[in-house]
């Protein structure tokens, strides 16, 4: 579904991705871990097409299409979803109106008929239930005055509504208490299927106790320096990142 080949990118003058290689297939969940400043969130931003990130080298293939050649909205319409680390507030725009606009834009792009109000509300009710999203928040202004946890849960609700192929969750666990974390995780687990894929970007192993990944990658200094299965996350939890950094530096010296 997603093939990243030798991806280099910079933001302003700082190079932040230095040759990422990653393949994500349908049905898989990948976790990307790493210390602060290693480039995890940058990778998400580059894939989603944030403007101030400049791709220097490399390719990204998304279901046979050149992802980097698409506008951010077309990437979204093709089925790439990013759950934001800091979801933005938009005063006066109701959550539900925003979602209806988004969903119908995506449907139009896919040459599907737009949903009418009734169909849309039915779908919305169904998904609210699935991800345990508070009905009161649905009609409020988009993220305005939401608590940190409510914002994150709103991201998962949107994910459920838009049914993307590939979801990138950018530190969705940060700032969540244990109950919220459990609800978010159970939402994601319900949405997992053989046809979609997830990339979880996280600092902590904690999230991975709830959403069990198929693969774990460690990102350091703009490169994936180690990949493994869920056991790798446990190892990291125990030992920290320092042992990996040392090995990685040795490798580079050898090269």
């Amino acid at each position: 579904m997603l093939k990243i080949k030798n991806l280099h990118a910079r933001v302003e003058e700082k190079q932040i991705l230095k040759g990422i290689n990653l393949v994500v297939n349908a049905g898989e969940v990948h976790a990307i871990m790493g210390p602060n400043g290693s480039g995890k969130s940058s990778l998400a931003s580059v894939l989603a097409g944030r403007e101030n990130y400049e791709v220097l080298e490399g390719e990204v293939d998304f279901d046979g299409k050149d992802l980097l050649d698409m506008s951010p909205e077309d990437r979204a319409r093709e089925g790439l979803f990013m759950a934001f680390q800091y979801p933005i507030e938009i005063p006066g725009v109701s959550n539900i109106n925003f979602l209806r606009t988004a969903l119908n834009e995506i449907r139009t792009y896919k040459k599907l008929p737009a949903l009418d109000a009734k169909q849309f509300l039915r779908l919305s009710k169904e998904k609210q239930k699935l991800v345990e999203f508070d009905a009161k928040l649905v009609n409020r202004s988009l993220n305005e005055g939401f608590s940190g946890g409510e914002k994150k849960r709103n991201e998962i609700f949107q994910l459920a509504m838009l049914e993307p192929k590939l979801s990138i969750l950018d530190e969705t666990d940060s700032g969540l208490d244990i109950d919220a974390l459990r609800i978010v995780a159970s939402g994601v687990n319900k949405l997992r299927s053989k046809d979609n894929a997830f990339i979880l970007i996280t600092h902590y192993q904690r999230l991975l106790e709830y959403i069990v990944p198929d693969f774990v990658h460690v990102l350091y200094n703009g490169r994936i320096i180690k990949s493994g299965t869920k056991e790798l996350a446990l190892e990291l939890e125990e030992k920290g990142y320092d042992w990996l950094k040392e090995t990685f530096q040795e490798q580079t010296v050898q090269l």
Partner: protein
Amino acid sequence: METNDQIIQDITSQEYEFGFITDIEMDRAPVGLNEDTIRFISQKKNEPEWMLNWRLKGYEAFLRQDMPIWQNFKLPHINLQGISYYAAPKTKKKFNSLDEIDPELLATFEKLGIPLNEQKALSGVAVDAVFDSISVATTYKEKLSELGIIFCSFGEAVQEHPELVRKYVGSVVPHSDNIFASLNTAVFSDGSFVYIPKGVRCPMELSTYFRINAENTGQFERTLIIADEGSYVSYLEGCTAPMRDENQLHAAVVELIALEGAEIKYSTVQNWYPGDKEGRGGIYNFVTKRGVCRGANSKISWTQVETGSAITWKYPGVILQGDNSVGEFYSIAVTKNKQIADTGTKMFHIGRNTKSRIISKGISAGHSNNSYRGLVQVGPKAENARNFTQCDSLLLGSECSANTFPYIETKNNTAMVEHEATTSKIGEDQIFYLNQRGINTEKAVALIVNGYVKEVLNQLPMEFAVEAQKLLSITLEGSVG
């Protein structure tokens, strides 16, 4: 000899083909402004003497005043002697078909979803078929007159209801109020008149749009609305379609009078031609609008959506004279390219327990300049007066500017006056968030702007609000790149 006689005969008997003194010529006043012009206008309109005298008082006041200098923009020179102050109706240039109309204008009509016949009427194409709204208007008129509601042109009111006009005209905006109001008093062409009798709730929105003779009263319009005790009326002015007009200066006057327990809701959508990208040729919209809550428990509410004109300069205000009266002002002012808006409101608290609420939403794009200027004045007898003001500015791009000039004067220490102001920019983060959900940038901006102005749009009558919303998105198209 015979041939000479023949020639003389021919010349004297034939109609003079250059039409020296035809009716058409007579229906246009000579260019320039002097007492004779005013007498000419008054005579043409067959006005009673008190009306002529009042016009002349306005003219005298006009001569005594200079152009204002306090505004936050450079006032272009306006040659007031270069205008013809009276032209008979329907002198607007007529086109034979829509093919002759600026395609850009037509594209805008298309986007606004304006029916073909209305498109023709708006852009000045002669309409051959009977215009739908004429029959609608007639039906409405019958219904209204059953209730004793008077809704007619100002000129008609002067003829048919002189006692009402004489009693109220100039009672809210005096003939000497400001130079443009004085000019309007002297030369006003026509306008609307509304009277709602005691205890009557006007069953429909009154709109100039449905008044057949509303056409071509544009330049110096005068509106007078009187809501008698316990009555209610909602009045709509303007429309969302871009209006073509040959006249650059528009100096209208609107007066509202709410007697005890009455409520007047006045909504405006203004979309006059703003000029080209450099602002050349746009309309100067210098309007004086004021209402008085004369009786206790009365209410006046102004709602305006201002997107057009090269310069918009107006402060719809409310004089809160009656105890417990309420004044409201809800405004959206959008400027782009080189447009200028200096607009806001004035709330004069005179009676006890009077309340006012001001919500102003400015949106500036391009190289435009958007100012909110508001006055809240609390008099010595206005015990427990309350005011809440919120004025927000939204900037699109970095070349535009927004300013806030709040003036607060209170002479009563029981008054509570609150003022909140914010300035924000549409953030790249907001746009990216919406992009990431499949919404393109144009739509994203429209969504954000509509959210920003929602509080004001909610004040408009439903169908008007929908149109205004469309208008805003179209106006701001291409403002964020």
